[in-house]
């Protein structure tokens, strides 16, 4: 049973690989129906699958592929011209074949999955429609029996000829002696089987000519019989199929790529080990730096230096090498699109040409697996909404055939996949209108939206610009999926569009996920690592450049308005130190959104290995994992997608300091204004209180400078002005004023001196220490009230 499973696995892997190639070949075939080489290749795929499946007793699959083979065989011999209608049937049967293979993969049996009878009938119609002569039938029957031997050779009717060109393709150089023995025996067996089958066929042909479709079940039974002889066969067949495949692609039979299949788990393990090595290397470099500082000029340092640089160099090379083993060409994903475009253009009655370039660009296997779905959605969208109908295109003076471009290329540590179309483009006004209609955005939001932001609307869930929901798209799900998947890969989406000219969508995706470059940032005493893939740029701004729009902090970055969030608000960092006048903003981009993250300091760029936080701490919002730094400490890695989500709801404190400065909120009545009165004399305080009573301003009293400073620091009150006596015990008015001015947030707090000192020198000292007004005792109550009101913009 295990052996069967093993064979089955090989069969499935091989079949899926063959079919992938098949789709592309078939579409090419439609444009060049007389390409014999191509036809032969396609025929061989159907044939190989049939042979193997009959050996494994998958009767339904065998039945289907057999009839496919018939049609293809006729085409190959020039008895049938492939036209679009026939191609439709062939493609349908290829789809069925895929379906069956999936069923086999999931259930190890091909029954109960797809119903092939309809398709088989159509295939027969194709085969017979152009060549109904009964004389052909016996040949087919003969082929059928002959093929029971599961080889990749061609049927015996022309087997002799084709065998010669098929078999030598196999590269025996990497076979062991035993394998060659087995191979020779197999070939001998094949020959015997074929002879036997031919004899049988001659006898069988007589009765079976009449009832062609019924041939199947009877043939399937003998299929099982040669099995014991052919048991070693599939094991040999797998490498053989591989060996011949590159030949078929390049049509140059010489260079054979030598490959081995490796379990992905082993590669993952290797990658993990490399990760550990990278951490070790980081640590070593850190220690080397420390040692260098301490023992400067000593001889052994140079040696140490050399070793460290060699280790670090080799580690980097090793890491790249292992990464490369996991790389697959993106062509693996691109391959399915020609077929998709063909089907879509027929369905939508449009003429669309797909131009693929850069399919040899490589990226990590895990990413290749994730990128397929988003691309399908984007291309469907381009076909359905982008490219116009033939009439529309002609009317606007464009060529009948629309062009969709699919291009991949490397850009630094990223791969960029660009999807372009020359269709009608995205109309921002229309996008906004639709979004308002569907309640996705408000009219106000729409007005303040830039073009780029408007393009981003197509990624909102529930959005669809199609007036009608078609079979192809318009359910408003697809593009949302694109966004989520790209975000998962830490990728960035960039849309450009011009009405009438077309749309271009760029997906920028990091090459690998396990070991990444990160930007280390500091907030208070903590450090966080941000994946560099998501960092667009960093800017240093002064606090004045932060504006508040609808209670959100924003800044102007060149032409754009960027919303801001403080990393401390996201990660609940206690703010002990006073922030300086300047802040660093890390501009993060993910999918199509951007946000500015305010941090206290930028530490630098480092290569980090992502480690999980374990079961106990998994799923912490905003944290993607942890990494170990050169000093042995743990640094958390920011999950940029989650952070952007959190930024929408998190309570911002960026501007609270700014608010403190001005007033601490809206003033709705006179008593919202607060003034501190600092004077050591109770009488003087009472006089001030009496003078200001009529205004209704709230007063807080302090007996001296120290007292005043404590009240201020406690943060219980937001003062709009302070009245300060100069001569006081413990701390005088001048000292108090200069102390207060040391705090950034009190820079704008008006300090008013109320004193009996009238000398010029005293006034000067007052100005130097930061007082804005100087009132001399005695004063009239109205004068005092007016000065206070003026200094705090009293509105009542």
């Amino acid at each position, binding site marked *: 049973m295990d052996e069967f499973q093993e064979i089955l696995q090989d069969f499935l892997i091989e079949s899926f690989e063959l079919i992938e190639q098949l789709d592309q070949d078939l579409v090419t075939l439609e444009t060049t129906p007389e390409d014999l080489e191509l036809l032969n290749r396609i025929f061989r795929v159907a044939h190989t699958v049939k042979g193997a499946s009959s050996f494994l007793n998958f009767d339904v699959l065998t039945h289907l592929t057999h009839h496919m083979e018939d049609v293809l065989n006729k085409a190959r011999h020039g008895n049938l011209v492939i036209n679009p209608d026939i191609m439709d049937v062939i493609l349908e049967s290829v789809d069925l074949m895929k379906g069956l293979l999936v069923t086999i993969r999931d259930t190890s049996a091909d029954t109960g999955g797809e119903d092939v009878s309809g398709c088989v009938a159509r295939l027969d119609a194709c085969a017979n429609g152009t060549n109904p002569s009964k004389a052909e039938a016996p040949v087919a029957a003969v082929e059928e029996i002959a093929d029971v031997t599961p080889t990749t050779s061609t049927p015996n009717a022309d087997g002799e000829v084709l065998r010669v060109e098929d078999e030598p393709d196999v590269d025996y150089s990497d076979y062991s002696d035993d394998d060659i023995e087995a191979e020779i025996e197999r070939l001998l067996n094949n020959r015997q089987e074929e002879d036997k089958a031919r004899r049988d066929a001659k006898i069988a042909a007589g009765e079976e000519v009449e009832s062609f479709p019924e041939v199947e079940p009877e043939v399937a039974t003998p299929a099982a019989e040669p099995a014991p002889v052919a048991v070693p066969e599939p094991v040999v067949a797998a490498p053989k199929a591989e060996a011949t495949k590159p030949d078929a692609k390049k049509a140059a039979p010489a260079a054979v790529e030598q490959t081995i299949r490796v379990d992905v788990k082993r590669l993952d393990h290797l990658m993990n080990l490399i990760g550990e090595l990278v951490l070790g290397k980081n640590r070593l470099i850190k220690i080397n730096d420390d040692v260098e500082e301490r023992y400067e000029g000593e001889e052994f340092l140079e040696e140490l230096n050399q070793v460290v640089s060699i280790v670090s160099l080799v580690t980097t090379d090793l890491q790249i090498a292992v990464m490369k083993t996991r790389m697959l060409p993106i062509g693996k994903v691109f391959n399915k699109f020609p077929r998709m475009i063909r089907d879509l253009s027929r369905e939508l009655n449009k003429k669309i040409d797909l131009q693929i370039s850069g399919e040899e660009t490589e990226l990590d296997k895990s990413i290749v697996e994730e990128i397929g779905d988003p691309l399908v959605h984007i291309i469907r969208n381009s076909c359905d909404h982008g490219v116009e109908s033939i009439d529309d295109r002609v009317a606007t003076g464009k060529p009948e055939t629309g062009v969709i471009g699919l291009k991949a290329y490397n850009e630094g540590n990223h791969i960029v996949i660009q999807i372009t179309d020359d269709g009608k483009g995205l109309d921002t006004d229309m996008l906004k209108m639709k979004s308002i209609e569907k309640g996705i955005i408000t009219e106000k939001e729409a007005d303040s939206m830039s073009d780029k932001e408007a393009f981003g609307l197509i990624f909102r869930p529930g959005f669809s610009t199609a007036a009608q929901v078609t079979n192809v798209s318009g359910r408003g799900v697809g593009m949302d999926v694109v966004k989520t998947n790209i975000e998962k890969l830490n990728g960035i989406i960039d849309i450009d569009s011009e009405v009438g000219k077309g749309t271009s969508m760029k997906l920028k995706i990091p090459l690998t996920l396990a070991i990444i470059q990160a930007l280390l940032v500091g907030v208070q005493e903590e450090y966080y690592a941000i994946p560099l893939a998501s960092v667009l740029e960093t800017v240093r701004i002064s606090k004045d450049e932060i504006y508040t729009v609808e209670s959100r902090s924003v800044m102007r970055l060149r032409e754009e308005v960027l919303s801001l969030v403080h990393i401390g608000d996201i990660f609940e960092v206690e703010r002990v130190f006073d922030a300086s006048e300047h802040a660093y903003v890390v501009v993060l981009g993910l999918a199509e959104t951007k946000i500015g993250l305010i941090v206290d300091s930028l530490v630098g760029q480092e290569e980090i290995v992502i480690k*999980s936080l374990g079961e106990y701490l998994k799923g912490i919002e905003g944290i993607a994992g942890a990494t170990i730094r050169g000093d042995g400490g*743990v640094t958390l890695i920011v999950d940029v997608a989650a952070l952007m989500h959190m930024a929408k709801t998190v309570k911002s404190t960026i501007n609270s300091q700014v608010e403190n400065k001005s007033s601490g909120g809206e003033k709705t009545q006179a008593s919202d204004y607060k003034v501190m009165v600092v004077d050591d004399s109770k009488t003087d305080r009472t006089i001030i209180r009496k003078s200001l009573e009529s205004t209704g301003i709230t007063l807080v009293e302090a007996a001296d400078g120290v007292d005043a400073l404590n009240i201020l620091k406690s943060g219980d009150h937001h003062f709009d002005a302070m009245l300060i006596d100069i001569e006081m015990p413990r701390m005088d008015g001048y000292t108090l004023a200069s102390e207060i001015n040391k705090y950034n947030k009190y820079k704008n707090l008006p300090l008013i001196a109320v004193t009996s000192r009238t000398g010029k020198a005293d006034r000067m000292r007052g100005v130097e220490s930061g007082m804005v007004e100087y009132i001399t005792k005695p004063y009239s109550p109205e004068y005092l009230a007016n000065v206070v009101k003026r200094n705090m913009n009293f509105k009542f």
Partner: protein
Amino acid sequence: MSDKLQNIINNQQQQNGVEHSDIDNIVQLVGFIVGDEEFSVPILSIQEIIKPIEWTRVPQTPTYVLGVFNLRGTVIPLIDLRQKFGLSAKNHTDETRFIVMRNDEETAGFVIDNLTEAIRLNKRDIGAAPDTIAEAESMIEGVGKQKDRIITILKVDKLLERDF
């Protein structure tokens, strides 16, 4: 003389026999103090005991989760048992230790005030947890009685279970 020797040998054999038969019934525990109480966990669930090292705070967690620390290349959560048991936080002293415990799927470090000793208890001397504590939520496996003292045995699975 030979009788005496025989006696001694017999005695030894008896003792050995007793130990052999008892080995299945003996539970080895490691005792430690958190606050004013002595607790213990089975020695087999302890991976190692280390002196306090630096850790990194993890946001959005309860206060008793101090953060994560690096144990020879593995990132491990650190939990303060004082705060987990509802006591106030305390600065680490020379006696403070991290006990790294693990079960099948999870490993975590626990901060304790100080270690006491390794304890060998006969299974007979372990009683059930007091009835007043709801069975499912209880972190207490049982109560061990030894001469003049009582030792609370904790459920390691429960300690390692995320409850936020």
